[in-house]
């Protein structure tokens, strides 16, 4: 034992000397071509991670840091490195909290800032996907999750694009092939367009934007309204995605929140938070019909439309009811069943087969799986990481369900806590949201991915990716 200890001490001393030399050189005035990037991952970075940072990740299990590939897969709990974002990489967070050697910290930080490349210059997950985009409304940041690896592989900090810390990304829509994604910023009254590389390529001003829906047939983006005005316009937006030009269409009811478009692109549905009413827009003629919805005050939150377009489902924030709606005549949607689900049904989604619906129940800290035909409850899912669940989405192949959770009441505890100057642990205020990964067959929560503050709407591409 003593010998092992001495060996570890010796190894660490050698490592630190080497590290000191590397970083001294790196921090000294640089000759042409000599940068922090000169550090080679396997030779320079990996040993530091293994020796200095890995022991700090006490709450992670299954983390294999024997290679770049293994490290990038993360632990059973999630990623430890987010390329290009050292400040949100767990490795750096823990290193800062533990007060590790500044040289080691600088080395790791620089490596991550430069994309956490391997020895061949490869950036992790640059060919990854499909991706899930998570709005962190409390952080002005979107988390990008690779749905194959189920780790956060990128972050998009809206402040980097000139938006404020109160930008409040609320909802996201993704083109079916994943080439583009759109996000509504309720604090900036704008809708942004990004490409797959997370480059901002367009934006449109839009007062109090809320839910988004993309129609790949007519190639239009539709936008509803959020609560972020005393009296938001009673209109939805039609946005031409190339120019981001906006046309606004009256839907006649206050606070048009719920919004979706049929898979064939022919009909758009909007519902009000204040009136039991659905507006149906004929996408071609722009004719509109208003249809009353029976029952108590619902405050309809969001629609999900079946993949075949034959039906849709929506939940009432106040009533707790889930309404099954027949779309045989899309301009006259008919409520065929009202189910008292309760628990604050939020953003639903259909599983790819169309026979089942995922319904986050915000006030119940649970997720319901419903039979799309009759609304009967197939499963109720609760557990770690399901804390005020908000958005839902499914991996294109139907293997996993993703549910974002606000966790404003701290029902979910991230695996690491912030520490006060006195050494007391406090709830993490900057990174306390979560995305639960649920097996779509067993309905088990298989992973909880920690994201930033107040995650809300999520969106993923629809099409299964094919090999290039």
């Amino acid at each position, binding site marked *: 034992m003593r010998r092992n200890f001495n060996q570890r001490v010796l190894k660490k001393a050698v490592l630190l000397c080497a590290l000191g030399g590397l970083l001294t050189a790196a921090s000294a005035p640089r000759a042409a071509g000599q940068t922090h990037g000169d550090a080679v991952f396997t030779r320079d970075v990996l040993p530091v991670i293994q020796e200095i940072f890995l022991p700090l990740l006490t709450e992670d299990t299954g983390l294999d840091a024997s290679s770049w590939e293994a490290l990038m897969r993360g632990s059973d709990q999630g990623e430890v490195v987010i390329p290009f974002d050292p400040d949100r990489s767990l490795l750096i967070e823990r290193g800062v909290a533990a007060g590790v050697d500044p040289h080691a910290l600088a080395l790791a930080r620089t490596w991550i800032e430069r994309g956490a490349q391997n020895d061949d210059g490869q950036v992790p997950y640059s060919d990854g996907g499909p991706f899930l985009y998570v709005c962190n409304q409390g952080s002005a940041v979107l988390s990008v999750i690779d749905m194959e690896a189920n780790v956060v592989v990128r972050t998009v900090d809206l402040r980097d694009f000139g938006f404020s810390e109160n930008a409040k990304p609320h909802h996201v829509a993704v083109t079916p092939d994943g080439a583009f994604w759109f996000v509504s910023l309720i604090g900036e009254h704008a809708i942004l367009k990004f490409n797959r590389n997370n480059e901002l390529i367009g934006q449109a001003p839009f007062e109090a934007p809320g839910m988004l829906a993309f129609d790949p047939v007519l190639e239009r983006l539709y936008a509803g309204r959020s609560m972020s005005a005393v009296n938001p316009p009673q209109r939805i937006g039609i946005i031409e995605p190339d120019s981001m030009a906006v046309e606004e269409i009256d839907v006649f009811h206050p606070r048009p929140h719920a919004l979706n478009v049929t898979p064939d692109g022919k009909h758009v549905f909007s519902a009000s938070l204040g009136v039991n009413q659905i507006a149906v827009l004929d996408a071609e003629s722009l004719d509109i019909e208003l249809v009353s919805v029976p029952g108590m005050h619902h405050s309809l939150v969001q629609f999900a439309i079946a993949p075949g377009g034959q039906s849709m489902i929506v939940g009432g924030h106040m009533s707790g009811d889930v309404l099954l709606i027949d779309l045989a005549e899309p301009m006259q949607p008919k409520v065929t069943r009202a189910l008292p689900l309760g628990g604050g049904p939020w953003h639903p989604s259909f599983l790819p087969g169309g026979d089942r619906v995922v319904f986050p129940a915000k006030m*119940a800290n649970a997720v319901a799986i419903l039979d799309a035909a009759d609304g009967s409850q197939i499963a109720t899912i609760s557990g770690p990481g399901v804390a005020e669940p908000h958005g839902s989405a499914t991996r294109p192949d139907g293997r996993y369900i993703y549910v974002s959770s606000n966790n404003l009441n701290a029902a979910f505890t991230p695996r690491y806590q912030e520490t006060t100057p006195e050494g007391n642990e406090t709830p993490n205020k900057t990174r306390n949201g979560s995305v639960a990964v649920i097996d779509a067959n067993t309905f088990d929560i298989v992973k909880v991915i920690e994201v930033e503050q107040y995650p809300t709407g999520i969106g993923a591409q629809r099409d299964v990716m094919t090999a290039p």
Partner: protein
Amino acid sequence: MRPRMHRSRPLSLLALLCGSLPAALLPGCAATGPGRAAEQAAGPLPATRVIAPFEVYKGSGETYAYPFLGGFNMPRPQLLDIDADGDQDLFVQERPNAIMFFERNNAAEGPAWTWRADKYEALDVGEWYRFADLDGDGDFDLLAEQPYSHMRYYKNVGTAREARFAEAADTLRDAAGAPVFSDRQNIPNVTDIDCDGLPDLFIGRIDGTVMRYEATETEPVPVFEVVTENFEDIRIVAQFGQPGMPAPAALPNIPGDNEMFMNDGPSPGGDLFADGAQIRPDRLHGANTMTFADIDGDEDQDLFWGDFFEPGLLYIENTGACARPRLRATPVPFPVNDPLQSSGYNAPSFGDLDADGDMDLLAGVLGGAFNPNKTAQSNLYMYEQRGDKQFTLRTTRFLDQIDVGSESYPVLVDLDADGDEDLLVANKISAEGGRAATMTYFENADGAYRPGEAPAFFPAYHYAPAFGDLDGDGDLDLLLGTWNDGIAWYRNEGAPAAPNFVLQQRGFIRLTRGSHATPTLVDIDGDNDLDLFAGETSGTINFYRNAGTATAPVFEFVSDNYADIDVGRRSVPVFVDADGDGDADLIVGSEQEGLLLFRNEGSRTTPRFGEREQLPYETPQAAVPAFGDPDGDGRLELVLGGYSGGLLYFDGP
């Protein structure tokens, strides 16, 4: 996309009243209908805003005190003595970026408030405003929203008697230098909660908690420091009529119209999560307002909270003392003896409205989750505090005025052929059934306007009537614009003095695209028949030339972008000879651009419209102009409808 060429079916009858008028007076025909008023309509544009130019009667037989105030949909009131004359004046914000000012005058018959301004001191206030003495100099300063969701500070650089405001900070900052943020739908408030002489700022948050700041400096601008993000652990979670919450029947003495707003109670099937899961009743996605007042006279500030998801007004009693506030009591509906019920998102203000020495309640209903359409007309609630400390609802229409709900659409027309102009006002949607628009009719009888029976039309949203003798039989026929059902054609099969409008064809004219068809009839080319113009959602003008005759018109589509006119959104064209040159000038109402004048620089037979000229009116959103001479003084007047459902009146020069 539909074909661009449209032809209506020919009409059969012969005479056309407007076509028989002298050419120089013809433009007025379209604006006012035929008859005496048409001759008097042309002339210099009216300029003076008048609230009560003549008597307008309610159905009850009383007159409106403020008939042409403009309507309220989401009034945000505040009572305060802005001129230090010992009584409380009234400010009301109805539309973004403007606050109305009413000066109080105590007359022998009781207190009254005189309208003084639609946009007080021309102050830009974003979505909300709060007057408070922030610098401790004894007069009221002003906090308002700096779009989006920040705070602007206006310092009162005048005196307590004569306020004068200067913008001192466009973005208020906290002690750390960060902009103070408040979601713009959450209206904050200021009071000295702990009686230490420093103003405290309270911001309600969407999770029902309250954030408290306290000023650390007041000059040159207040600097607020966060005291707590969770003031008194307040968390507004109660919401009556919900699963797990008290049923409506449990509330005491709810006013008679309570059923309009309350839920039916918990869902009959229950809650599938009720067993085995922890239900959190928190309201998220909310919007709120709040105010403070010492309602129980114990010399500390109690809290009153209105919320989007709350049909009532919640009261949290301060059970501490002035220097040691304690607001940890369970929120209860207020007034306790007679709780306010509305469509929700209620904005309270307290003051002595009846000059009896105690505080009464004035609450604006902004409209929340309980069908705001139902409070589009009745949304400024006044509760009187009686001598026994109990409150009684006196009116839901304080500052009573003509208000037809939302998006009023006035027409001045001599509907009974008695030689004066009557007033017909359409709206967007009925506050009662919510299935269609309604018409309200006021008959001009000897210079006063009295409610009468409005003609009935097929159910549609947003009626937009245009009258004219389309079949040449000497009475007024009607084209009726609608929201999404095009323009309908009604023939008057009655007599000039007793019209009977019979539907001939729905969808008589369908716009090439878009909605909100707003027709107007005018002989634009001097060929003695009526041509048709129509505004629409997109803000352009549609033109249909009458290719038929004065007795058998055929409206032939010419353009849906007439004269390249585009007013942004919601165009409403009317024609009036504004410059007295004998031809028809075009004035277009709009959603956000006000009223725009396009002078006819051509002739009566070959119109050519010039560049847009902004008319100097402080207009509501979705402005709908109607020119005429409703007071019969021979000068041109303007009645203006708009988003708030009321009317504005501008008197001729």
